[in-house]
């Protein structure tokens, strides 16, 4: 991942390509986007992630020019684009339904935007050929959209929106209509194309895996607000609230009272008669403040005996085992009927593994494995 090399958001001198400044969008009584401020930098692959109705599509439609903010303004390369109609913006969009023109063949679909710009014939032919090559569609240039497969249509839509070399490409759930396998392939292809063309991509998705795979940064949205904007790894390893931790991947949330136990260390009292859990946190908690300890299942170790050096260990009974081939998820019932999940990689063959239903096991993890959250 280019994350270490490419991080303009950490550079205070970098000029963002897109700036949302206190943007609010209301539809009647419903507020789709609430006082939102966000910077997106050039060459970024930026993902807007959230459940349906969180305002992510509205953000994208405001960038494309199909919606006008109720208040606030949006800048593209330093220019306020709110009054600019969609056909005058250096922004192109790939639609969720692909919106291919059914009466035009693949070639004419890709050439459509270029023709509107009055591009000379030779240059146009060259550009379309380049786009067909980029998306491996050379053989289908003369086909109509209804004569090609879903995956091919998706690539035509991508080629058409990239043909005009926009400053910004918007992708609205681009993989929504593809099956899982094709989707994974396409995600890598998309990243490849993004790197080759150097275009800034903004993708809208409700699929957290997809956002994590393709994006340089992810914005998690809920009810019209940005909850967290960070790199995929930061979002996963250091979510800033239970909502984000829960939305991205699988997580165990243990609620309890936090007490300071040294520098950047807290104990969490989570159940009567149980040893408190130890967690590292650079955030400050007041004594006995209610806190949530979030631990990813793959960071929880399952053992038959209590590991001697374990900082946190809880005994429980295996309630359920989900075997997924490469990994297994154990649902373990611990004190107070609480269910915790632990994941182990199946590096051994199935008959060599020790645990089965109703076994008593120990769950253990390190003090830095989890994140302590206020809300």
């Amino acid at each position, binding site marked *: 991942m280019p994350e270490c090399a490419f991080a303009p958001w950490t550079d205070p001198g970098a000029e963002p390509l897109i700036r949302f400044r206190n943007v609010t969008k209301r539809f009647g009584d419903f507020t789709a986007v609430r006082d939102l401020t966000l910077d997106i930098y050039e060459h970024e692959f930026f993902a807007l992630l959230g459940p349906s109705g969180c305002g992510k599509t509205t953000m994208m439609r405001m960038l494309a*020019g199909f919606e006008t903010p109720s208040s606030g303004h949006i800048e593209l390369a330093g220019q306020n684009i709110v009054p600019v109609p*969609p056909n005058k913006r250096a922004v192109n969009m790939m*639609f969720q*339904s692909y919106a291919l023109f*059914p009466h035009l063949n693949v070639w004419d679909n890709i050439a459509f935007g270029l023709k509107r710009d009055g591009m000379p014939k030779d240059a146009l032919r060259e550009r379309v050929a380049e786009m067909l090559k980029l998306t491996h569609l050379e053989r289908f240039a003369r086909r109509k959209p*209804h004569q090609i497969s*879903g995956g091919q249509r998706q690539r035509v839509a991508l080629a058409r929106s990239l043909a005009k070399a926009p400053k910004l490409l918007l992708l609205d759930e681009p993989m929504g209509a593809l099956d899982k396998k094709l989707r994974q392939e396409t995600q890598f292809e998309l990243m490849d194309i993004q790197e080759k063309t150097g275009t800034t991509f903004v993708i809208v998705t409700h699929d957290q895996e997809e956002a994590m795979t393709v994006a340089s940064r992810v914005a998690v949205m809920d009810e019209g607000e940005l909850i967290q904007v960070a790199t995929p790894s930061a979002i996963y390893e250091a979510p800033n609230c239970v909502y984000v931790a829960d939305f991205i991947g699988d997580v165990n949330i243990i609620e309890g009272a936090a007490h300071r136990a040294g520098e950047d260390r807290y104990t969490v009292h989570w159940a009567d008669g149980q040893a408190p859990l130890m967690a590292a946190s650079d955030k400050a908690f007041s004594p006995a403040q209610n806190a949530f300890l979030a631990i990813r299942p793959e960071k929880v170790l399952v053992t038959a005996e209590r590991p001697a050096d374990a900082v946190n260990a809880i005994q429980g009974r295996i309630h359920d085992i989900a075997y997924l081939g490469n990994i297994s998820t154990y649902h373990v019932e611990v004190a107070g009927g609480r269910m915790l999940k632990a994941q182990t990689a199946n590096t051994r063959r199935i008959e060599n593994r020790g645990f089965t239903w109703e076994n008593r096991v120990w769950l253990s993890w390190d003090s830095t494995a989890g994140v302590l959250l206020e809300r």
Partner: protein
Amino acid sequence: MRLSWFNITSLTLGFAFLYLPMIILVIYSFNESRLVTVWTGFSTKWYGELLSNQAFLDAAWVTLKVAVFSSTLATVLGTLAAYALVRGARFPGRTLFSGMIYAPLVMPEVITGLSLLLLFIGIGLDRGVLTIVLAHTTFAMCYVSVVVSSRLVSFDQSLEEAALDLGCSPWDAFRLVTLPIIAPAVISGWLLAFTLSLDDLVIASFTTGPSATTLPIKIFSAVRLGVSPEINALSTLMIAVVTLGVIIASLISKRNFVREQQGVAGRH
């Protein structure tokens, strides 16, 4: 489903009820005899005679002119009205307008004819081909707009947004994307308007003047002096033209529907 004797009987009765009078008319148009009700032998001479009857030919020419102009005008206006009502921004009273455009469909023709007559007299327009064209446009427009708006409702609006996104002005988006896609509906709307104009008697007789006699008016007045085999021949020809128009219109919309279904099926 298998056809039972009951279904066969009801189908036969129904179709006989609908088409028997027309079949009799068509058969008698090939009758040798001048007496309409007495069959003496097969002949096409009444068709020949029809072609040498200048009055009928004039009426046919007027009818054709009226039908072409009114259906074209109705198609343009009806398509624009459908587009505005389906796609336009929500404006107060849109539902009322959408309902109102369909009202002439159920309005008795006598009332439409009479009100148009009063209007033409009121504004001092000489009655003739022009007034019939205007009158036919008025009622055919509703039919066109019904046909076109039903197509627009099922039309994926993101296609128009994609056109705008790729640099089209709203007019270009309509011209280059919307219109080619809804063209079959527009064409079947035109054919419908054309056939409606061809066979209209009531509204035409209200709004016509001495200079313009359409075929239905001609037939109606001729029949009052007694049915001649020539009229049968003429009516047969009109039935043929109207049938052809309706068949073409339904074929076009059916083919388009099938293609659209294929497109949708392929997408998933």
